[in-house]
């Protein structure tokens, strides 16, 4: 009886120590896991915020391009105005065109102001090292290609469509990690071309300058573009193009609304006797129509607005933009 009591006491001590120890160990494992997750989340948030700040800051410098290097272990994703990692996400109002997943390597960050016809916003292109955009243009698009004002740091080469040769192309594209072929005018059969260039990472686009329309291959999906900067966006971030062009159009409509109100105020300020009244009134009517205008007619109206603004400048009137 006595011995039994002693045994049960020792056993109790051991059991108690075991359970308490296990509980403590479990508590510390959970705590350190949570602590590690929180630390990673904080680091990721800091990284995303500082990346956004670095990109925004580019618009304030004279040199609109710089090189960014992401940490090796880092994986960043972009999805329609949201930058996110495994642990954190940050919504962003930046117009950023890039591959949808960015990993630890070097990127060129280039900014181009988007004017349509007035300045609307900065477009940023995050281009992985080893990327190339080849433009093949028909004679009818030669003037457009020559007038394209692209930064010299952008990996873009323009060639006449007559210079297109599959054999030369296959040799030339060796060593590139990401290639976009852009055809101004008629594009060769995309599926045959993609099959011939396999396994090279190639994307094919066709541009219809007359209708300001883009065709993405092999899907054949057609999308309008508004201004050169948005067209360039499709070359470097085809995955985000649909979403970004929708946001860009919203931003454009917001600005037209502001210029509409500016035109109304200027008219009231200048009074009915002013020679600028008529042009301002025409511009205001045009600006009011943008909110309901379909995408096809936007281009014609933008050209008219530009000509009206030039008229205002010629007549020494306050311009709209």
């Amino acid at each position, binding site marked *: 009886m*006595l011995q039994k*009591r*002693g045994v049960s*006491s020792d056993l*109790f*001590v051991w059991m*108690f*120590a075991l359970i*308490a120890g296990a509980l*403590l160990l479990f508590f510390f494992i959970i*705590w350190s896991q949570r*602590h590690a997750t929180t630390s990673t989340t*904080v680091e990721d948030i*800091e990284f995303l*915020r*500082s990346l956004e*700040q670095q990109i*925004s*800051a580019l*618009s*304030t410098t004279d040199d609109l391009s710089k090189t960014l290097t992401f940490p090796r272990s880092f994986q960043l994703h972009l999805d329609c105005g949201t930058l996110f990692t495994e642990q954190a996400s940050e*919504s962003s*109002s930046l117009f950023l065109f890039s591959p949808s997943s960015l990993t630890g390597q070097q990127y060129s960050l280039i900014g181009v102001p988007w004017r349509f016809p*007035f*300045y*609307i*916003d*900065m477009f940023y292109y995050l281009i992985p090292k080893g990327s190339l955009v080849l433009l093949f243009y028909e004679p009818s698009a030669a003037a457009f290609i020559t007038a394209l004002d692209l930064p010299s740091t952008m990996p873009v080469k323009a060639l006449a469509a007559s210079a297109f040769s599959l054999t030369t192309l296959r040799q030339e594209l060796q060593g590139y990690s990401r290639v976009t072929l852009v055809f101004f005018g008629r594009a060769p059969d995309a599926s045959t071309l993609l099959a011939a260039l396999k396994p090279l990472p190639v994307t094919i686009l066709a541009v219809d300058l007359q209708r300001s329309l883009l065709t993405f291959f092999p899907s054949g999906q057609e999308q309008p573009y508004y201004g050169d900067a948005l067209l360039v966006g499709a070359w470097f971030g085809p995955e985000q193009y649909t979403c970004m062009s929708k946001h860009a159009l*919203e931003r454009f409509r*917001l*600005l037209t*609304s*502001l*210029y509409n*109100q*500016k035109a109304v*105020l*200027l008219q*009231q*300020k*200048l009074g009915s006797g002013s020679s600028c009244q008529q042009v301002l009134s025409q511009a205001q009517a045009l600006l009011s129509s943008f909110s309901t205008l379909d995408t096809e007619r936007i281009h014609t109206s933008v050209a008219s607005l530009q000509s009206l603004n030039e008229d205002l400048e010629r007549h020494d009137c*306050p*311009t709209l*933009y």
Partner: protein
Amino acid sequence: MTAQHSTKGQVHLHETFLVLFVIIILLLLGLLLYSKFFVQSLQTRAATLSERDATVLLTKLTSLAELRCSDKPCLDTSKFLPFQTLTQQRRASYAPLLGTLRITVEEIYPEPLTDAVCTKTLYLQPSYPGSCSQWVLYNQQPKTLTSTQKFSTIVSLYYPETQVYTLGRLHLEVYRP
């Protein structure tokens, strides 16, 4: 002998409990202290980030299409009143970009004759731009306000009506909920 054995066992058991209890308390205290410092460092990092955000925003505002001149590094004063109206009408579009803050612009050189805040009525007066010298471009307060941070920068102001340039200051007052 039996009673002694039992008392020894009990004392031993009590000692074990006491040691374990002290160790747990010490560990928990350590954890509590560590967590407190960790949270404090997080708050400092958050404050630094917010401050940096505000500085970047101030720079961004000077290049915002809604406010800036088309080709020159200046702010177009004829866009100020339309911007004020637009941010009120389209709050949902501007809230993610601007957040909870107050943006004001004041003319500083040449020294203004009045410190009146510009409204549509003052804008339409023949004496404009002399009729007012301040603009409240945006003001969005949070439901609860704990602190505010103020930032400002010198800007060039352009009056397209008279084609005159003056010097102004862009103020940013960030509300912290």
